[in-house]
């Protein structure tokens, strides 16, 4: 009995060790980015340096020389507007799908979901040409609208699930009390789905903030977003790794904070509501 207990403890010890290794592997590139961003230029190309006196010169450089604040401003405008409009339109559609019965409803729902899977490199060509014809290339508006193409389908699927989680009886009770459909939505449904809306919006923010291919081809200067800053650092010779890492830290810390907030809904978000954990 005792040996069995000991055996179990040893196995558990090794499993814990393995788990820590897995977590280390997941975190290491982020850790290395933070380290690199705090190193001087000479230190960035010496991987044997792990303990050093941190410097903020890289952060200073990316804001002063690279105008990072302009990119952040563009990202902020595009991400916030595309999120607000997508969540609004998508939630309306989701309500229609959740609460009404009509023919070909599921066909419509799955057609919407299929749009979420469009490859960006396929649709970027027509977006690029159409944007050129109507003079919208390199504007915030174009990216805001183009980002609807993945944010609206995502919202529809997430919010449909959240709305269906609310019992219809609550709404019916409000109708009996003399509320119109819209009043019932505002008074009963809306307060209950606020957590769902918040989670969905945060996912839209993360997706839009990280998006690269469309932003890269549909903007040139005025509407450049944060992920397109990679193009500064692509040349092999003389890459300023410290500055690159500083841009990376500034760009990714907000995303990570948001991700921690929606951790509870992560699986639901990753599977478009197909798996609710």
């Amino acid at each position, binding site marked *: 009995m005792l040996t069995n207990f000991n055996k179990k403890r040893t196995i558990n010890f090794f499993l814990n060790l393995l788990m820590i290794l897995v977590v280390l592997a997941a975190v290491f590139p982020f850790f290395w980015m933070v380290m690199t961003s705090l190193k001087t230029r000479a230190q960035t190309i010496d991987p044997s340096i792990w303990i050093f006196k941190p410097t903020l010169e890289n952060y200073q450089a990316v804001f002063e020389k690279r105008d990072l604040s302009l990119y952040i401003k563009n990202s902020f405008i595009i991400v916030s507007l595309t999120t607000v409009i997508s969540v609004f339109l998508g939630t309306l*559609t989701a309500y229609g799908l959740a609460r*009404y019965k009509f023919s070909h409803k599921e066909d419509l729902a799955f057609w919407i979901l299929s749009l979420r899977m469009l*490859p960006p490199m396929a649709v970027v*060509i*027509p977006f690029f040409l159409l944007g050129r014809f109507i003079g919208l290339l390199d504007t915030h508006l174009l990216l805001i609208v183009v980002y609807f*193409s993945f944010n609206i389908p995502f919202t529809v699927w997430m919010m449909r699930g959240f709305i269906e989680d609310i019992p219809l009886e609550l709404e019916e009770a409000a109708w009996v009390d003399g509320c119109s459909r819209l009043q019932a939505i505002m008074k009963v449904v809306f307060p209950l789905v606020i957590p769902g809306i918040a989670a969905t919006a945060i996912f839209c923010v993360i997706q839009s903030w*990280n998006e690269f291919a469309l932003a890269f081809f549909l903007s040139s200067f005025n509407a450049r977003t944060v992920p397109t800053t990679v193009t500064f650092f692509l040349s092999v010779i003389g890459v300023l790794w410290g500055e690159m890492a500083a841009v990376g830290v500034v760009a990714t810390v907000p995303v*990570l904070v948001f991700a921690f907030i929606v951790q509870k809904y992560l699986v639901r978000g990753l599977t478009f509501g197909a798996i609710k954990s």
Partner: protein
Amino acid sequence: MKNRKKEHLYFILPGVLTLLLIVIFPTIFLWYISFTDYELSAGWENRRMVGFENYTYLLTRDKDFWYSTGISIFFMIFTVGVEFILGLATALLFNRQIRGKRLWMSFLMIPMVITPTIISLIWKLMLNTEYGVLNYILSLFSISKINWLGYENALWSVMMVDIWEWTPFMALILYAGLQALPQEPYEAATVDGASSFQIFHYLTLPLLKPIIVIALLLRSIDSLKTFDIVYGLTQGGPGNATELLSLHIYRLGFKHTGWIGRASSNAVILLLLITLLVTILLRSMRQTNEGET
């Protein structure tokens, strides 16, 4: 009564019409361009309709297209397969009693929520032959330097980064599936004296199957779309060693040549490949949905 019947349209139409306008219309336009010889430098008014010429060019004369298709499919099967195996192992690893599990698992989501282009550059630094930290760590174990992003290894390195990025996706989804499994069959199996391998093989895997199918398909679709991390790491190089389909479209349409017509026909082919996978995915999601209700 008549009004009531149409009421759902007020909710549905704004979103659906927006999608029609911004997705379906451009997609039709893409098909149209794929039948023209439009080149960026030649000007829009000078385009001609060329029928299937772009397609026959890609399929019969563009060897790089076939190479890109081949490595895209290989990339998809290999990375999704490894991500599934590692993800399942990770999910099982976390499916125990662990102190502070929520915190540990939140670290796990970092690779997939972090901006892909940014982290691909960090990987480029870490994979550098001369001063990358990976070779430094290997040197501590007296392993000689590896040229990670050289012609021979570049595709494998890109796949390694993809596996790093997306194994947590599999792990978290499968973990959610494991957590939702019913308890009774397990109690019965333990009473019957089944070994843990038997339980896993005859109980856990079949019960998880619907979730496994969805996770595999979602990842396969995303894998065929891969662009960001490859662009950051290698831009499709060296040569065309890592030129996945998305990067081939990029090279044809935007990089040197500006052959928008040919790039469009390649984009249509990518779209068709993905549509095929999406159709399978949606069918299995509908089955799972109907199973629930």
